[in-house]
């Protein structure tokens, strides 16, 4: 198959699989997840390049991937819906110190994850000190504390 089509197929597939598995998948890079990411990238590299190690193919693939990303970013900028479909939207998971259980469960976020984010980013000690916690599009958790 033409390397450009291979690159595009891989790009679309990755976009789809990361949307299906959700924001929380591979969002925290533990040692295991880091190794998993390396294995995924190695698998993709072999499928895209095959036995063709020419510099032309490398140039074409890099341009394909960067071009696809550029087009997607332009579309996201122009159409809000494309942005939502490809990135998702942030979700509030703690409201005035109260964990929103359904939202957290369905988004696969545990209370401990929120407390962990609160401790590491702001040094907060308890859930009641959190005004809002938001699950961001990249899978990270933002903590907004009460203002003293």
């Amino acid at each position, binding site marked *: *198959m033409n390397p450009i089509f291979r690159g595009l*197929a891989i790009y679309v597939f990755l976009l*789809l*699989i990361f*949307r*299906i*598995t*959700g924001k929380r998948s591979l969002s925290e890079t533990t040692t295991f997840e880091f190794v998993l990411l390396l294995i995924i990238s190695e698998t993709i590299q072999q499928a895209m390049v*095959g*036995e063709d190690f020419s510099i032309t193919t490398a140039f074409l693939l890099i341009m394909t991937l960067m071009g696809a990303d550029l087009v997607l970013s332009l579309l996201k900028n122009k159409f809000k819906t494309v942005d*939502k479909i490809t990135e*998702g*939207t*942030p*979700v*509030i998971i703690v*409201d005035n110190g109260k964990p*929103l*259980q*359904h*939202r957290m469960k*369905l*988004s696969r976020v545990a209370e401990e994850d929120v407390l962990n984010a609160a401790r590491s980013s702001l040094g907060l000690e308890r859930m009641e000190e959190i005004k*809002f916690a*938001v699950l961001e599009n990249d899978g990270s958790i933002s903590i*907004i504390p009460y203002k003293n």
Partner: protein
Amino acid sequence: MLFSKFKLEDVKQDSLQVEEDISFVRKELVFQRVGWFVMFVVLALGCVGLFGTGILSHRTEATANAKIEYERFLRFDNKTQLIFRINNANSSTTIGIPINYLSKFIVEKITPEPHIQRQTNGSMFYDFHTAGSSEIRMLVKPITTGNYKANIAVNRDVIQLTHFVYP
């Protein structure tokens, strides 16, 4: 019905400037669950050989005197074996493979090696020294994708193979 399982709490606040769209989040969650289901179905089908190497893929086509074992589903650029089993072979066995089939594969290895290889009437004929029950293996690698059929001649018998090669 699936949507009713994805009830999310309402949050009434206006201090935090965040573009939350909870109806979209619900659709996203449903899409994800459907996606998980499809992913595991694809994996299960992969385990049983829908994408090659498994019971759905392994085929045996036989006549009274010969049998061919092969994989119905192949993957592009991935080697596979065609195993010919010949009963009560004479001193010589001939296998004829159409050229248009061979144009879609690279024949990497034939065991045992044929003593003669010739091309006649659009087919490549391989002649082997054989005696009794014999087994001939061909290691081939698909170089195009898609569905194709071939009539393989084993001595006087003709056996049809069907492959689907995934990209």
